[in-house]
């Protein structure tokens, strides 16, 4: 399949002027031009195929927003090549942005003083959206995002969650094939988050929109992303499916069994018995050593089972583990 995004050796280095502190600091700051270089993004290489839903993760300051800014043409890279839908984002800005949608965190693309619906109408002209298509999309998104209660409200009076929903609608009226979302759920309550996740899922599954999103909320990742990229200090540390991430770095899986009767000893060979009371046993096992079906086979060959569940390790814990223990070490430069 032809990739929709191709990134080769992408880098963005910012030159940050040194700021002195203490006595004479203002003078020093004024007269010195000493600068240090921040490698916000450093030699990224990846491809994304049409229809993928990619979670772009990393701790604060990892370079996520900077990457998204380069992919959307807001920033010119220091090095490297970006090709999105056949465009060079920063050289062909006007033609390019017609094909993408982007929502950057807590910033709004809507006109501050205008009622939501008037902003949306204005976008019809900005993107030259045919009237019929515009009406169709608008009414559809109004339903899905439940915008009706605040369509007539000026944007400045909206809650954060309402604004994010309105902004998502605004970013999609022109049927972009690609959607960039920088922290779409930050600062929202549980209900609002869920609504936005459902919507993103719908876009990806029904409309085949390719989505790249950054987030701190791992529930977003767990519910949405087929593919995960982890970046730290500007370098790509992991690129693959959730499964593989769990395999490599995840904690143990759990098998929870309810026995039909009480057995005095329910230990089995390869799994560790974590807990056993009221005829319920919790086994922990490592997916690299044992598959769930093997374990279930083992247990059921010795005991009568009434019910069972396999519990995957918590992704949140996995990723925290990766960040904290620096399991994916950035090579020293």
């Amino acid at each position, binding site marked *: 399949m032809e990739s929709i995004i191709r990134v080769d050796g992408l880098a963005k280095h910012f030159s940050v002027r040194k700021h002195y502190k203490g006595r004479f600091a203002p003078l020093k700051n004024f007269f010195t031009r000493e600068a240090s270089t921040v490698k916000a993004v450093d030699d990224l290489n990846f491809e994304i195929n049409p229809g993928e839903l990619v979670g772009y993760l990393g701790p604060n300051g990892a370079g996520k927003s900077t990457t998204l800014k380069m992919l959307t043409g*807001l920033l010119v890279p220091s090095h490297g090549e970006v090709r999105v839908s056949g465009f060079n984002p920063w050289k062909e800005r006007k033609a390019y942005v017609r094909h993408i949608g982007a929502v950057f965190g807590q910033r*709004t693309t809507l006109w501050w*003083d*205008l009622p939501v619906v008037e902003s949306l109408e*204005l976008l019809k002209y*900005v993107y030259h959206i045919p009237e019929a298509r515009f009406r169709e999309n608008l009414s559809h998104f109004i339903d899905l995002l439940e915008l009706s209660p605040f369509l007539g409200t000026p944007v400045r009076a909206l809650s954060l969650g309402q604004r994010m929903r309105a902004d998502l609608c605004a970013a999609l009226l022109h049927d972009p094939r690609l959607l960039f979302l920088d922290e779409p759920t930050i600062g929202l309550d549980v209900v609002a988050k869920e609504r936005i996740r459902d919507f993103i899922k719908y876009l990806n599954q029904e409309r085949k929109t390719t989505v790249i999103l950054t987030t701190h909320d791992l529930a977003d990742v767990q519910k949405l992303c087929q593919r995960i990229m982890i970046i730290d200090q500007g370098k790509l540390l992991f690129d693959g499916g959730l499964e593989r991430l769990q395999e490599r770095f995840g904690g143990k899986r759990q098998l929870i069994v309810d026995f039909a009767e009480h057995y005095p000893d329910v230990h089995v060979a390869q799994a560790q018995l974590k807990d056993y009371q009221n005829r319920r046993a919790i086994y922990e096992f490592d997916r690299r050593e044992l598959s769930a079906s093997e374990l279930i086979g083992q247990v059921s060959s010795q005991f009568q089972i009434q019910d069972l569940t396999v519990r995957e390790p918590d992704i949140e814990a996995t990723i925290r583990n990766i960040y904290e223990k620096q399991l994916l070490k950035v090579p020293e430069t």
Partner: protein
Amino acid sequence: MGLYLKLVGVQIRSQMRYRSQFVLDTLALLLVTGLEYASLALVFERFKSIQGWSLAEVAFLYGLVEMAFGLTDMIFGGFDAPRFGRFIRQGSFDQMMLRPIGITLQVLGSDFNLKRFGKMAVGVVIFSYALSHLSITWTVAKLLYFPLVVLGLVLFFGGLFIIGATIIFWTVESTEVMNIFTYGGSFMMSYPMNIYETWLRNLFTFVVPAIFLNYYPALFFLGKPDPFNFPAFAPFLAPLAGLAVFLISLGFWRFGLKHYQSTGS
């Protein structure tokens, strides 16, 4: 163009929602400018004229510049430096870059403020006062040239606005200083240039060609002699000088945009 009018249209509509606010703002502005002018009139009361310019003649110049500046302020409000600085800091400028239309057009259409209509109205009142107290013989040439002078002034002030906004790309913080350019410039240009010290006048002649936009055209309309012995075509440079400043400012603006795209701050 159609889109520009759309952008401006919605702003006017949203401003009309706060009609009482609009009326109050306009009244306040009229009052302030009125007082400013009244104090000037008091000075004339005692001296009758300033360096060969009567009150009505100064009013002609003052009204002309105020009208043009009010018009500029209305059209180029999006480039008003403090406002534009806020725009960048809040990320609204990035949002403009995400839309498939020209950035300059969007900034131009981002702040069409009716409030500033008041400023222009003040200019019109003062200018009318001047006309009623002067006996200018309006030849065809003068009638034809007058709109060109206003156009030149609007381009000139527009250029200053754009330069002020562009500097923000480098100094995102200190934005109020840029007002010296625009408001300060228009203030100085409201008075005849012969009242200023030579160095200042030279600055306004050779560095910033302001003198060809206000002073010389005024000499022409009022039929006054040129104390500085410039060539006879000096009064007719206004549209050219305005256009030159405007084009230079656009070049600088494009350069600033490039800088912004590479630093993102």
